[in-house]
């Protein structure tokens, strides 16, 4: 065992170690074996490649936005172009990156293994969902190359239905289809978690990652169709002249807002919950300790999912909703903040009395905790009615949700990718380089978005192409931070790609973690388990792991 060293990494002897002869990667060869695969792990890899592509596409738009905002004058691009940039940045990042990020890659890869199943319940539907996702993505790209779309990701009516002549319908169709990809992923997860658990894998023995994805899946299944119908109505208003949201025909444009945010607020939790799941796994592993208050953390995921459906109107506080219902929604918003606070403190106390090491995933987890705390607390600013009036629709809100989405979700995603990289590909990433990139993105991130809180309180509105000159200094800081952040995000692609071929051979369980996924070979076999495991231990039972390792050593020796 690691003894007093500062790392828990336990790699096989590199001189004798070999990659497994047969695993899910080399089981079959050729492009078609990938495109028609039913294997959840291969589909996860397909997703990983596609969302990485969309992430960098969205990232390029973000970069252009920041570059334009370097100066107060509208000098880099025209107003139309700028509007298309931020619209596509939002659409791509939310619907094509954040929503599928952790569930469709890590979740797809890990959930069946973590609960001891050979695959998801519906492998074909899983593959179908990737194809739907790609169709949605291709349609969005079509909208992009045929002239873009400038509705913003929120498709606000009547702007989107009557006042723009860009490719709104194409983009909406793309999102509609990608939405069904998300529905099918969620559906698959729920059925798998209910019906496919290995013998002995009771609900309260499941890893918290599974709980978090389960909660997110419920939101995907119940929320997404409401977005779908509101986008259908937008498309029908544009093409056929229906009058459901059109104020000139007697419709209420606020109804669109209600339906849209009924999905899009829970969508925030679809994005963040799986990230929280990743953090639970990482924190437990690198502090060698069971998560403090496992049950509370599990239930807080479900509570967030449940409360998540009751708070959407806080996106509309100043949009002319009734003040009485604004009160109700503000109160409920305060309640939804509590489970997140519980999680934060539970993670912090998991560290107590642990035996902590600081590998890259752990650094990302620390970054997550810090940034998500700020992101969550600034959410309370916006949930408080009177404060929301001044802060909403400014850069404060931009900073807030980037703290949650990028500082939270993206850090969790990167942490998770690093954490399970050895499992996915059987090789380690380079440790020092990855630590560098984690620190770089943390610094870059704060430099980018911290000034935006100040800008927001000063009143700089979001989605502004040009701005008054007194805001320039903070914008320059933000753009500088974005550059650093860009480097921090680009590095992993390079060294992770490098590690695929040259990384150290990881062995089954480099982190000495307890999850079922770490008890099988890396990369796993196509069928995951040669024999379905019988689970007798709780999640994060390090004593069980120590006994097992000892047992193996004695029987083999």
């Amino acid at each position, binding site marked *: 065992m690691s003894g007093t060293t500062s790392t828990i990494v336990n790699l096989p002897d590199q001189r004798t170690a070999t990659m497994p002869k047969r695993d899910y990667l080399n089981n079959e060869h050729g492009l078609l074996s990938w495109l028609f695969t039913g294997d959840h792990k291969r589909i996860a890899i397909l997703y990983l490649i596609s969302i990485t592509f969309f992430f960098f596409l969205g990232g390029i738009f973000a970069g252009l936005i920041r570059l334009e905002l370097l100066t107060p004058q509208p000098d880099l691009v025209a107003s139309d172009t700028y509007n298309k940039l931020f619209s596509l940045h939002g659409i791509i990042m939310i619907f094509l990156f954040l929503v599928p990020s952790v569930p469709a890659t890590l979740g797809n890869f890990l959930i069946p293994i973590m609960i001891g199943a050979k695959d998801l319940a519906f492998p074909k539907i899983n593959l179908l969902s990737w194809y739907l996702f790609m169709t949605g993505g291709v349609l969005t790209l079509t909208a992009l190359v045929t002239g873009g779309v400038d509705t913003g990701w929120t498709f606000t009516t009547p702007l989107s239905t009557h006042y723009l002549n860009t490719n709104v319908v194409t983009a909406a169709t793309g999102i509609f289809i990608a939405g069904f990809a998300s529905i099918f992923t969620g559906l698959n997860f729920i059925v798998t978690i209910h019906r496919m658990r290995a013998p002995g894998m009771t609900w309260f023995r499941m890893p918290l990652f599974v709980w978090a994805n389960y909660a997110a899946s419920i939101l995907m299944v119940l929320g997404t*169709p409401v977005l779908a*119908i509101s986008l259908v109505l937008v498309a029908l208003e544009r093409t056929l002249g229906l009058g459901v949201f059109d104020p000139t025909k*007697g419709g209420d444009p606020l109804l669109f807002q209600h339906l849209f945010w009924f999905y899009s607020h829970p969508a925030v939790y679809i994005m963040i919950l799986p990230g929280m799941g990743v953090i639970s796994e990482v924190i437990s592993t690198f502090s060698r300790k069971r998560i403090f208050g496992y049950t509370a953390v599990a239930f807080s995921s479900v509570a967030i999912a449940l409360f998540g459906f009751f708070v959407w109107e806080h996106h509309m506080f100043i949009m002319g909703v009734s003040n009485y219902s604004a009160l109700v929604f503000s109160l409920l918003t305060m309640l939804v903040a509590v489970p997140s606070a519980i999680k934060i403190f539970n993670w912090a106390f998991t560290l107590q009395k642990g035996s902590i090491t600081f590998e890259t995933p752990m650094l990302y987890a620390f970054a997550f905790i810090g940034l998500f705390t700020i992101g969550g607390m600034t959410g309370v600013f916006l949930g408080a009615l009177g404060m929301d009036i001044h802060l909403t629709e400014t850069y404060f809100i931009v900073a807030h949700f980037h703290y949650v989405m990028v500082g939270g979700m993206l850090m969790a995603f990167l942490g998770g990718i690093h954490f399970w990289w050895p499992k996915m590909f059987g090789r380690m990433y380079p440790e020092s380089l990855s630590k560098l990139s984690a620190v770089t993105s943390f610094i870059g991130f704060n430099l980018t978005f911290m000034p935006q809180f100040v800008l927001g309180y000063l009143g700089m509105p979001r989605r502004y192409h040009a701005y008054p000159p007194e805001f320039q200094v903070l914008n320059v800081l933000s753009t500088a931070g974005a550059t650093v952040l860009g480097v921090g995000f680009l590095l992993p692609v390079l060294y992770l790609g490098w590690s695929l071929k040259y990384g150290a051979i990881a062995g089954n369980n480099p982190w000495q973690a307890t999850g079922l996924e770490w008890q099988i070979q890396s990369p796993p076999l196509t069928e995951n388990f040669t024999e379905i495991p019988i689970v007798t231990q709780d999640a994060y039972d390090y004593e069980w792991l120590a006994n097992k390792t000892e047992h193996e050593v004695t029987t083999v020796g």
Partner: protein
Amino acid sequence: MDNALVASHAHTHEEEHEHVALPQHCHHFETEQQQREAGTFGMWLFLLTEIMFFGGLFFAYLLYRNWYHDAFVAASNQLSIKLGAINTAVLIGSGYFMALGVWAAEVRKKGLLVLFLVITTVLGFVFLGIKYVEYHEKWEKHHIPGEHFDVSEFVNPQAYGLKETPLAPDMAQKTQVFFSLYFAMTGMHALHMIIGIGLLFWLIWRANRGEFSSGYVAPIENFGLYWHFVDIVWIFLFPLLYLINRHPGS
């Protein structure tokens, strides 16, 4: 490291199954029972999304019906209650034969199954045919929302031989909201029917090959759930759209 050891075991346990009865049994399920229940559960989850999908439309309906009640009454009275009722009966009948089809598959009667599925399909087509007649009438009367929408029949019903109370011009405009919702809701419903009929053709073809005559009924059963759900939507659409107020002037 025991990688080699692991790999050699890969296929041995497949043969350990007590029985491998159905070719459709997927290897990653332990039992057919588990597979079937997973299928039903998955289908229900999908229907959950359908509830929410139509839910948005139903909410819009509820809201505007309260806002523009008079317009909704007048516009609703434009719909043929006879055609609507017939269509309801047709759809319920279609659902009935679908249910019988599930039964036929359960008791492994191939001929009956195909017959029931064909009847289900035919009734589905009858429904869509009647729907087409109704849509066509709306088209002729310029009651399709959009540029050519015409409110004169609501402003001046006497001129059209109707016994309705005339609507004020501003309220008459709101009939367009009714027809927007009418077309959105029945259109979405019809779209589900069309998708369902497409699936039915596929199922008939497979049933005819005898795929569902050996105890493997999951596709029939799950399609049945979908088809009944489409029924239920119509069961609500019919009173909401056709029967708002059928006793004008009282």
